[in-house]
Every structure is written in structure tokens, then in C-alpha cells.
């Protein structure tokens, strides 16, 4: 059984329930803002833990603070919110009904671990099978799996590479995790997960025997629950554009070309490199790092829209070379326009004043790899005054574009989306309100802003049902 869901039969509540789909920063925010205003909220998340993308980020711009810091606060807010229920490994299958009166059927994948789990870790000790750790994105995977990992959250199987403890030298190996695992140290709910791939194997038995608390339930099966909800907040967030499709940059062909998300994992002290900033090809220090902007964005061959965050992400990441290598670290940012709007301009100015960071107004034409050194060589033209370049770097980071996680026909309901796949605010959406990166390419700050607004729109629907004389919203 997953977490108890008071909201389900509307038990103990006189008012409509708000369903939040997606447990990233936007979904969490929307759920909390609503429930802290006295509403009943159910939050569903498809991963085994909440937090979403930000759990995989090393630092935020422009403060260079740590994303899990705010997450800790939010998780504590959740623990203190009796009227908020969280369902993990859950996804919305269908939504029927009308604004104020929906029936949502939610599919819950088996965790094989019930709520008796104390997160002691005995199961992980006992289980032998290991898998690539999806928490670290594609980092260290072979090109093929890599682009795959980028497009969906799948990980390689247990065959092949052995767990890579030290990645100080030699090619970077993917981080591994056990078949029974806690996705990351701060994962909440603080409960282990069994990888479905060990079910039916000897390992499943081992996990079962190791648990002293009867928390392993190998008979757990996928279940579907029906929820009566008044409004839905859709906060399914974003996924990185598949870098392998940007052919001239050779992601997948050239090992020392990685994505901005992979760099975030690399900086994690508990990540595949133990926080070392190195070249995947040989594990040597990556001191001279190139950042390519609009990698997949503002491009009719890929994503037509501007992903907004990438400029700031690269400015932020340019400080990583400094952080690891001091004056030996250098960064070059290849850009079309630096989009550091409002107060973020302060951060841009600060970075610009660093002599170790170069800015070149140019969309890089293509990347070749030096067969001997493995250095990626960037070819193109500095359009300011026209200068041709062929610059070797230790590592290339693609400031990868942002696309909606759910797109096209994958929505479990009718909803109005724009050409880029983002949800448009539209009366035809009824009481389905999008939040965060489902609405546009947004940074964290604006996602939270958007989620807070979405929370009110949902609250309006709920109150319309309870407060006398309240028209339900029209516009």
C-alpha cells in the first residue's frame, strides 16, 4: 500500500480536492501553497521520490546556492501538512468529468516496499544486482544509451560495466546503484525502492529475507485508484532536448561533449566523478571548458523556442571551472544573445568581469575531435567583426534546450497547447491549470511564481463549490 490518502473518498473534508500532477518544484509549490491555505490536496509523482529535476542540480543561479536547501524546507512543510497526501510512482491515466467535479484514475506502479520501511538499508546490502544510476542522467554512459537516457529516464541493464568507485583516471564510467535503493540521500518519502528488474530473481528473495520489518512486499502489483477531484494542477515539468539530434556537435560521437545537465551531476560530490570536473574520454581534468548556447533552442531544426534558462545556466557553470581549478580554470561561452534579464544582469556583469571567462558571439558550426588528444575542436565564426576560429577545449558543455516532459497526444485529457508543446491558459481547459515548465520555458523562480498562481486558480474552483455566492472562474 502506498501512502494513505485521506482525500480519496473525500473523507473528512467538506470541500473539493485539488489534484497536483508532478512532484517537481512547481508541483510541490502548488500543492503546498494550496494546502497551507486550508485546502485538501493530493500530489502524484511518477518517480519514487519528490523534488524532480532540481534534486539533480548542483547549484542555482544567480546565488550559487544549493537546490536541496529549499527542498528540505518544502519537504518539512509537507510533513507538517496533514491535508496534503503524496503518491509516488503514480501517474494520471485518465480524467473524466467537468470543472469542479472530475474523476481521475491514477496508476500506481509497485514499489515492492511498503510503509513499514524504516529506510535502514538492509535490503540494499543484501541485493547483488547493480544498474546504471538514472539519477546521474546519461553521464558516463555509452553514446547510444546516453542519448536514450536524455530522451527518457531509462537506465542501462545490470550487464556490463562494474561499479566505478574511482573515476579519477581512465574513461568515465557510469555511476551504479543496487537493485534495492534509495534514489538519493535526501530522497523523500524516505523509503527504499526495488528495481522491477530484480523481481522474480534471487535478489528479490534476498531483499525480502534481509528486511526485519516486513517492509518488502514482492506481491505488490500495479494498482489504479479513482480520485474525485475538483481541479487539476498540471506540473509535469520539462525534459532536456535529445542532444544526439544536434549532429554537428557530435554528442554521442565525441565523448568530451556533454550536456549542461550532465555537468551538474559531475559537480555533485556524491556523483559519478565524486565532484571532479573531468573529461569523460580519459578522466583528465577539464580546465578549459566551452559552453555552447542554444543547443537545440531557437532553431527550426530542433526547438523553435528560446529555452530561457540556458544562458544563465552557462554563466553559472562558468564558475564551476573556477571553483575546481582556480586561475587554471577557464570558460568560453559561445552565444547568439545573452539573455540575462532583470536583476540577473548583475550576475552576467560579474561573470563578464572575470578575465578567465570569454564570450564569443557565434553559433558554433561544428565540432571535431583531435584524434590524438581527444580535445573537442570548435569551428565557427566570431560574428562581431568576423573572426574565424578553430578552438580546442578540454570539454564542451551543450547548454541543452528545454522541452515539455509531456507533449503531443500524451496528455490524459483535452488541453490547449501552443506550437512548442507548452500549455496555453484557455477556458477550454476547464479546471485544469498548468504550472511551471508545462506552461513555458521557465527558471525555478518563475516556475514557483507560476505554480503559486496556478494554486489560486485551483483554490477558486474549490471555493466556488463551498463558499456561497461564488461564481466559478471564467476567463
Amino acid at each position, binding site marked *: 500500500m502506498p501512502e494513505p490518502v485521506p482525500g480519496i473518498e473525500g473523507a473528512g473534508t467538506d470541500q473539493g480536492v485539488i489534484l497536483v500532477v508532478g512532484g517537481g518544484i512547481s508541483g510541490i509549490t502548488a500543492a503546498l501553497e494550496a494546502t497551507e491555505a486550508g485546502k485538501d490536496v493530493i500530489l502524484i509523482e511518477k518517480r519514487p521520490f519528490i523534488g524532480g529535476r532540481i534534486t539533480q542540480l548542483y547549484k542555482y543561479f544567480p*546565488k550559487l546556492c544549493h537546490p536541496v*536547501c529549499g527542498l528540505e524546507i518544502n519537504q518539512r512543510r509537507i510533513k507538517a501538512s496533514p491535508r496534503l497526501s503524496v503518491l509516488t510512482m503514480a501517474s494520471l491515466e485518465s480524467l473524466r468529468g467537468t470543472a469542479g467535479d472530475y474523476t481521475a484514475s491514477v496508476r500506481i506502479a509497485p514499489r515492492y516496499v511498503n510503509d513499514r520501511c*524504516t529506510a535502514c538499508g538492509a535490503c540494499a546490502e543484501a541485493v547483488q544486482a547493480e544498474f546504471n544510476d538514472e539519477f546521474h542522467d546519461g553521464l558516463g554512459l555509452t553514446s547510444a544509451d546516453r542519448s536514450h537516457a536524455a530522451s527518457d529516464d531509462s537506465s542501462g541493464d545490470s550487464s556490463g560495466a562494474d561499479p566505478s568507485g574511482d573515476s579519477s583516471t581512465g574513461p568515465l564510467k557510469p555511476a551504479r546503484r543496487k537493485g534495492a535503493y534509495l534514489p538519493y540521500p535526501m530522497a523523500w518519502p524516505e523509503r527504499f525502492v526495488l528495481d522491477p528488474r530484480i523481481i522474480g530473481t534471487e535478489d528479490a528473495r534476498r531483499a525480502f529475507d534481509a528486511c526485519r520489518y516486513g517492509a518488502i512486499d514482492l506481491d505488490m502489483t500495479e494498482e489504479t485508484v479513482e480520485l474525485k477531484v475538483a481541479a487539476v494542477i498540471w506540473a509535469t515539468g520539462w525534459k532536456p532536448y535529445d542532444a544526439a539530434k544536434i549532429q554537428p556537435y557530435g554528442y554521442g560521437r565525441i565523448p568530451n561533449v556533454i550536456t549542461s545537465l550532465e555537468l551538474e551531476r559531475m559537480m555533485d560530490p556524491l556523483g559519478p566523478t565524486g565532484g571532479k570536473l573531468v573529461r569523460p574520454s580519459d578522466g583528465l581534468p577539464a580546465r578549459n571548458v566551452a559552453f555552447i548556447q542554444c543547443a537545440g533552442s531557437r532553431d527550426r531544426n530542433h526547438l523553435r523556442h528560446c529555452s530561457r534558462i540556458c544562458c544563465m545556466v552557462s554563466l553559472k557553470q562558468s564558475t564551476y571551472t573556477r571553483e575546481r581549478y582556480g586561475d587554471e580554470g577557464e570558460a568560453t561561452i559561445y552565444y547568439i544573445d545573452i539573455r540575462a534579464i532583470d*536583476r540577473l544582469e548583475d550576475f552576467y556583469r560579474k561573470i563578464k568581469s572575470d578575465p578567465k571567462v570569454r564570450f564569443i558571439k557565434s553559433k558554433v558550426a561544428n565540432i571535431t575531435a583531435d584524434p590524438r588528444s581527444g580535445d573537442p575542436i570548435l569551428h565557427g565564426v566570431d560574428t562581431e567583426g568576423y573572426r574565424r576560429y578553430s578552438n580546442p577545449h578540454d570539454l564542451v558543455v551543450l547548454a541543452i534546450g528545454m522541452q515539455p516532459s509531456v507533449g503531443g497526444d500524451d496528455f490524459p485529457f483535452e488541453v490547449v497547447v501552443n506550437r512548442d508543446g507548452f500549455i496555453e491558459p484557455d477556458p477550454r481547459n476547464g479546471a485544469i491549470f498548468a504550472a511551471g515548465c508545462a506552461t513555458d520555458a521557465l527558471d525555478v523562480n518563475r516556475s514557483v511564481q507560476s505554480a503559486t*498562481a496556478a494554486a489560486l486558480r485551483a483554490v477558486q474552483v474549490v471555493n466556488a463549490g463551498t463558499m456561497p455566492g461564488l461564481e466559478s472562474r471564467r476567463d
Partner: protein
Amino acid sequence: MAKERKIGAYICRGCGIGQALDADRLEEVAAREGRANLVRQHDFLCAPEGVETIRADLASGEVSDVVVCACSGRAMTSTFRFDGVAVARANLREGVVWSRARKGESSALADAGSSDSSERGEIPAKTGETTGEAEVSSSERETMQEMADDHIRMACTEIRFMTPPSPSLEQTLNRTILVVGGGISGMTAALESARAGYSVTIVEKSATLGGFAARLWKRIPDRSPCEAPVDPGIATLVSEVSVHERITVETSSKISRTSGSPGKFKVTIERCDPASGDDGSTGSRTETFGAIIQATGFTPFDPSHIPELGYAASGDVVTSSELEALALAAKGEALVRPSDAKPIKSVLFVQCAGQRSSKPGHLSYCSGYCCAASIKQAMYFQDADPSIETVVLYSDMRTPGSGGEDFYRSGQSRGIVFTKGETSAISAAGEGGGARVRYRDLILDEEVERDFDLVVLATGMVANAGVDSEANDTKTDEPDTNASAPAAIEIPVESILNLTYRQGPDLPHLAHGFADSHFICFPYETRRTGIYAAGPVRRPMDIAQAREDATGSAMKAIQAIENAGRGRAAHPRSGDLSFPKVRYDGCTQCKRCTVECPFGAIDEDEKRYPLFNESRCRRCGTCMGACPVRVISFENYSIDTVGQQIKSVEIPDETENKPRILVLACENDAWPALDMAARLRRSWSVFARVIPIRCLGSVNTIWVTDALNAGYDGVMLMGCKSGENYQCHFVKGSEMAQYRMTKIDDTLEQLGLEKERVITHEVAITDIERAPRLINEMERTIARIGPSPLKF
């Protein structure tokens, strides 16, 4: 605390605790020293069965207060929550069993050449070791057991000094919202609040609603396909607002006084008719509101003091807002030159005019909306007559997001020419009229001088945020930005809210005069609980974002009202019912609490005593830490709940060579970091005693001196980053603590102790490896300088 208290201590043997520790001895400690009335052991306390035993004891009245001796207080929080019952947690799992040193890891005492190496806190535990059932020497078991014993003592002591928070009876539920400012942001906030069932009063200082947007011909599109300018939609908004039954509009009015707190803000609204009298006041009235939204918008930047922009020099150089006025007048007809009403054949838009520059008198920041605004305005011309040449001179085209790029493309497809360049001088073109512009074309890398019939300066936004309440201690010390920001705001700054708060009359500014939150994860965090900034007064933004922002701020205002109604704290300690209580007889009116409160929650009453406002308070305890006479405390968090814990720890005498290190760790970052370190089986000194605290700001120096007097060999404070990019969730807490700790040195001297014995660290939640290391370093330091001379 009238009723007699019966403490029940519940010792869990799960997660390896039972194997690593002697539970019977823990039980004995709890009973004898902890003076628990009832002690039970359980193999699996967090299981329904375990929790049930506790409930049963509570029900039968055998137990009134609960001490859970199991895992960290961060784990199983809701499992061990019992309404109306005080609960203390002894952290045996993460704090003791999981955080033991691995075999072979050098112990500081050994390095220090300790005579008795068997006295080490070493217990072999392979990584991922979960049971602690490794063969361990009796003496190793002993030191760990002592650590556990202390945790039991601490928890049992803590519970005796805490009571479950009781309602203050101050709560008032008032579902009305005051919106200051009748522009797009204000009207949106009002409508969205009203739609949720809350009553709203809009106070607008001018005679009509609409604000800046009412002076626009068209606005930037925000719905797909974002290809053409759209109607600002003000008329619709105004009529919706005016007819709404739950919205009252007060135009030609302003706020002359605001006092009180969420749920009961007392606001004096003054009608002022500019026609009559000097300040034009024509009577006022006072009303009560539950929360306040400040949507006072911005003032367009005035470029007249920047000669190189040629604004004063030529009548054919206008600002973007002036162009809107012209367009509004032209009603879609072709615009004519302001100077001589001749038709306009060429227009230049100068981006970042007076912005994104550290030159004095310029705005250092980017106003975000100007690039799209200029595209929109160039379209005015292109659409009226495609033969008009429109050039946008930019340094970066900033049209982010999905719609932004569409709009940029649409501008290009209509023939607007975009040139990357830097303007150096604009002047009058001469008899012919128009303006002469000198700029550097950065792509063709050449100086250009040419005439345009009209030059439009894309000028920025200056926030109408009133007086910067904390001007002297805001932390935006980027010299150039500071230099420019104030210079830009030439308009005489008069207060908007006229708060009666000790900390000043308006919301504190964050940077460049905007009243924004400092937190990335919490854009609506406010330092004046119940008062939220919305729209361009918070951050430069376009209409689309302002409407979203206003909706969000309405959500927060509503939430503040509901919280105030229940006496619950707002984020980050959401739901906390505890609240500072003062022993007035001891108060010396020193005002430290009033001054140091990061949220301006404390006023002074007529007798100049601190007056606490519950619903403004965020329960961080900074006042408690500040109070030199220690008369401020919370029911469940006080000088005693922590102070007595410190004293309850057993201090072995120096011959035993078992130092004691007190670690006061911020519960938001340092403490979770230690928890995670333990989960990963990182070890820290077995001699450390960690106590989580709400915020470093709540640390009263008495705790430190008491600890030293009690014979602790070292004291560590672990808090969040302070300074420009502070991460303290209570804004100034860690900063205040560091300030106070500078004073501790004198104390140390008086006591004849080394400075190294007390140290403050900034620890981030990600310092999973570092935090334990810091503690171990402290153990080494002590090994180096020797035990405290104050042990008895």
C-alpha cells in the same frame, strides 16, 4: 503546566540500535536520570504496533509527554506526531549508531598520542553497514553507549522544559485584502482574490484605474501565436473590477498609516484631491484588513540627465512610453514627427537606453521587457506603412521563452532591421529635423553616423517601492550597482504603506530599489509577513508576467489570512503554533529583540516594552537569541529546552580523556547534512553532542558560556551562509549569530580559555562530507590544546 506531567520514554531497538547499544542501560538512564515515569523498549517503534502502544499509554493517561528514543527528528515526523502532546526525540540511529567511525580511521586522540588508545570511538562498520553488529571492543561499545546515554538524557531534559504550544487567543480571521495600486497588477490581484471569495479594497492614488498599461496603445502578445501586438485589455479589466460585488475601489487615495498584523492590519486610507490644498487631503477613514498586496508598479526611467542619449537635445528623440502616448493619439494612423509633424520615414529604437550600464545615472539592471516592447512599437510603424524603415539597435535581443522568440521572428518577417550595436551619441539632426545617431555596428565592426526621423529610447523601469526600510543593511554591495541604482531614482521617495513598524515604513528593498524576495525557491518570501509585493514593484517584468505575479501574490495573501486565523506560522516554519512569550518583569527595554527581528514583528508599546505581533512572527527565535536578560522564549523552544539539555550531558573529568564537543546545528541545513552523512555512514567524533536549533539567530550566548562552564572542551555553531548571497531562511539569523560570537571572545578570555574552543561554521545542506569533517577537526584541535581547564 498545571496538570502533573508523566513522561513516557520509548526506546526503539530497530535499525541496528538494539545490536549496537545496550537498550536496558538506556532504559535505566531514562528512568533514573531522565526521570521518565514510564519506559518501554520496542523492536520496531515506528510500526503501527509501536505507535499504538504510545497512543494507548497516552489514552490511559499513564503518559502525558512522549520521548521517542529512535531515529533523527527529521525521520518519521508525522508518525511520531500526537496532537496536543509534547514530543522530544533522542537521535540514536543517525546521531549515534550510523555515524560511528570506520575501522582504521585515525582518531584525533591517537594522533595526539593518547595514552589509552582503547578509548577510541571506533567501531568497525563496512560502508552500508546497517546493524552495527560488528565485533567491537567493550571500551568502544562503552564510548558509543555513553553518547547514546547522553542523547537520552538530553531528550528527557528537553521534554521536561517544553509544553505543547497553546493557542495565543490572538487569532482573528479577516477575509479582506487591501490592494495598493490600481494598475494591471493591482486589478488582477483584486479580481483573482475576489474570485476566491475574498473581499478586496483597491487604493489607487491617481483619479482612475489602469496605471501604466492604460497609457499603452497595444501590448506585447502572450498567447500563441505571438505574432502581433494586442489590445492591453485595460477597459475589460477595469469594468470587471468596478462591477465586482466583492471589490471596492478608492481612487485619488493613499495610505497614511498601517499598523497591526496579518488578520488585523489597521489601515488609514486618505482621500486626496490634488485640486484642493497642498497635500490635498480631503478626509480619511480607517479600515481593517487581513492582508496587503502592494502593486504600486514602476516609473519610467527619465533619461534627461544623460546627455549622450540626446533626449534633451532633439524633440524627435522620445522615450518608449512617450511613443505609446503618440501611438495612442494616432489611433493606428501613421505617426508624425513630434518636432514638425512631418511624416516619419525612418525610426531607430535604441535598446538599453540608460540601462545595463555601470555609468553613474544609468540603471545597472535590465528591465526585461524593452526588447519585445521595441519590436511591438516598430510594428506600429511597419503595419501603418511597410515602406517606413525601422531599425532596432541592440546589444542582446532578449525575447526569452516560447512566445518571445515567435515575436522576434515575427518582427523580422515584417521587415524590422535588427542591428547589433552600441550608441555613442544622439543629437539633433539640424534644420531638417529628426535626430543624428552615432553608433558602432558591432557585426560590421565600424562607426556609423546617420539621421533618423525619429529615435525611440527603450528606457527601463524604476520601482515605486517607497522608502527602503533597511537601506543601511541591505546586502547588495556590488559597488557599481549600488552607485547607479540610487542615482537613478531621482523622484522624491515618499512612503507608500506608512507602516508603524519599528523597522521602517515600507517593505525593505532587495536590490536596485525593487521589493523582491531574496530566495530563488520562494519568490513570495516577504520580510513583512502578510504584505506581498506584486508586479514591477517586485521585479522588472512585462504585463504577462505581472498578471501571473499578481495572481501568485493573491494566493499568498489569502494564505496569510488563513494562517493568521489559525495562529499558524507562515513558511518556512509553516504550521508552527509556538510563539514568543516574554517575562516583562525582567525586560530592560534594551530593544535588541525589536532591532534584530528580521521580520519587523516586534513593536513597542506605549511603555516602550517590546510588543510581539504573533501573526507577523516567523518563529525563528532570533529575538530569543538576542535577549541579554533571556526573558523571551517559546513553549516548545526556549533558553531552557536547549540550555538544560546542554547541562544534562555527562562531563567526564579530564583524566578520562573523553572530551565533550557541543554542536549547535541549524535544523534547516547543517542538521540535515549530518543526517545524510550518517545515512552514508560517514562518521564524526564520538565525543560530539549535536543539538538542532531553529536558526543560528536563536542561539543565545548563555548556551555557549554555560557549556564552557560545564566543562565542555569545545563549542561549534553550524549555520547557513550569510552575506550578499545569504542562505539563512530567516534572513539575518546566521549573520546576527556571527556578530554575537565576535563578542564571545571576551568571555573566553575572562574564563581563561583558548579562542579555538568556540568556532562558527557556515555549513550548506550539501556539505555531507564536510560537516562531519569539521567536527572531527574540532576533536583534533582539542587534542592539540588539551582538555578544558574548567572541568571539575
